[in-house]
């Protein structure tokens, strides 16, 4: 078993248009999906959501506003799952609710730090 980081990317402007009721309703599919992963004992870390704002720090101590990506591919959050292979990790990702709002899941294997 290896740990895989699942990175959720989606068009951020969609979030901003949602009503509070819609935002609450979105919670259920996420809880159901993560509950399902956890029930299979495949959820290694329940991760976090990320604030849309950010800073980018560049060489020469230059700090700019905003994450340094296309707004359509902004990272909204992440979790860590346990899986035997990339295929299994990708299979687990297919139920992710981010896909219902045209977002994507990036699957990356976590490599242990070399000591």
């Amino acid at each position, binding site marked *: 078993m290896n740990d895989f980081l699942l990175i959720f990317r989606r068009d951020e402007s969609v979030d901003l248009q949602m009503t509070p009721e819609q935002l609450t309703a979105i919670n*259920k599919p996420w*809880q159901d999906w*993560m*509950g*399902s992963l*956890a*029930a*299979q004992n495949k*959820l290694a870390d329940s991760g976090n959501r990320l604030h849309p704002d950010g800073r980018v720090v560049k060489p020469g101590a230059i700090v700019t506003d905003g994450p340094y990506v296309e707004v359509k591919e902004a990272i909204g959050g992440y979790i860590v799952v346990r899986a035997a292979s990339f295929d299994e990790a990708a299979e687990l990702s297919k139920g992710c609710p981010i896909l219902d709002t045209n977002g994507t899941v990036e699957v990356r294997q976590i490599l242990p730090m070399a000591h």
Partner: protein
Amino acid sequence: MQNHQLLPHLYRTEYRKIIAVLARLFGFEHIQIAEDLTSDTFLLASETWANDKLPPNPTAWLYTVAKNKAKDYLKHNTVFEQKVSQHLRIETARAEELNIDLSEANINDSQLQMMFAICQPIIAVEAQIGLALRILCGFSIDEIADAFLSNKETINKRLFRAKEKLREQQVKIEFPDSKEINKRLEAVLITLYLLFNEGYYSVSSNTNLRKDLCLEAMRLTYLLVENRATDLPQVNALFSLMCFHASRFEARIDKNGEIIIYDEQDSNLWNDELISRGTHYLIRASKGDQLTRYHLEAAIAYWHTQKADSANKWENILQLYNKLLILEYSPMAALNRTYALAKAEGKKKAIIEAEKLTGHLYHSLLGYLYTDVDNDKALEHLQTALKMAKTSAEKTQIRKNIKKLN
């Protein structure tokens, strides 16, 4: 109460009080002395009371004898006095002046301190439960062996090793620092939770003993609720959980000692008083921003006390199981989540989820889910489940489910 019943009754209620106070006095280094003195006290009672010559106040008699035995021990055991009394928790020059306080307040304090001393992750959790049953609940070695489906020798060895370990680590019988209390409390709550579960889910057929285990776990948890320093949200949540579970004591076991599953219980037998106590402590647990597994399990148990079977009830239970599993995986929670999903959103959705699970109750669950959806598949899974079943209670339940298919 009949005379011949009185002594066993007092043993159950008073042994733990006397030993807690004496052990606190002697310290864990010499807990054997405290145990011997307490046992001697009851031995003397059984000899002197044999011919119906009961003292007017038997409890007071026991306390007096225990006090005198402790004082005598200190007076006559010069080795002990010279080498060890300097370590005594209570500084005293002369044994006659030693104040052995068997007041209710001191008994409670001593039991709380003993609870923190025993519940240490340095010893295995079964050993913690065993020691708690022996020292904090006054269970005999036979009863502990019965509860664990084990034998006297194994239990004796287990407790002996555990005590030795606590001695080696120089564990003190004292109240933890206020800074440490949350962390130390974690181990105490786990032990009390498992002690309760041991009674509630145990495979032992001795229903009275099982109920006693649950009641003892509740009594000890209540000591924590009553104490200002430990009256914390997670403690109230655990107590609430125990109240809700205990409310179904009468409904969940039939005349033959067999478990009646939740769906088939007569809800008129659920105990309303315990349900409202559970609700009271769940509200008390809601202070602060900490959400522990005890909070989630108590909330799940709360929804189970709602008699009306609505989609809303099971949707709430499903979401609580999601949260519980995200916090901490357990095979039982995984199965229960899938059951709640079937109740909330239908069997078809639940079958897809159940097929992803593993574990020895997996086939039982699928057998239930396929019932009335695909009875051939249901039978197949139930027959596999029957082969894998570990206890006779499980087998009985599976046979019942197979019968329902026809």
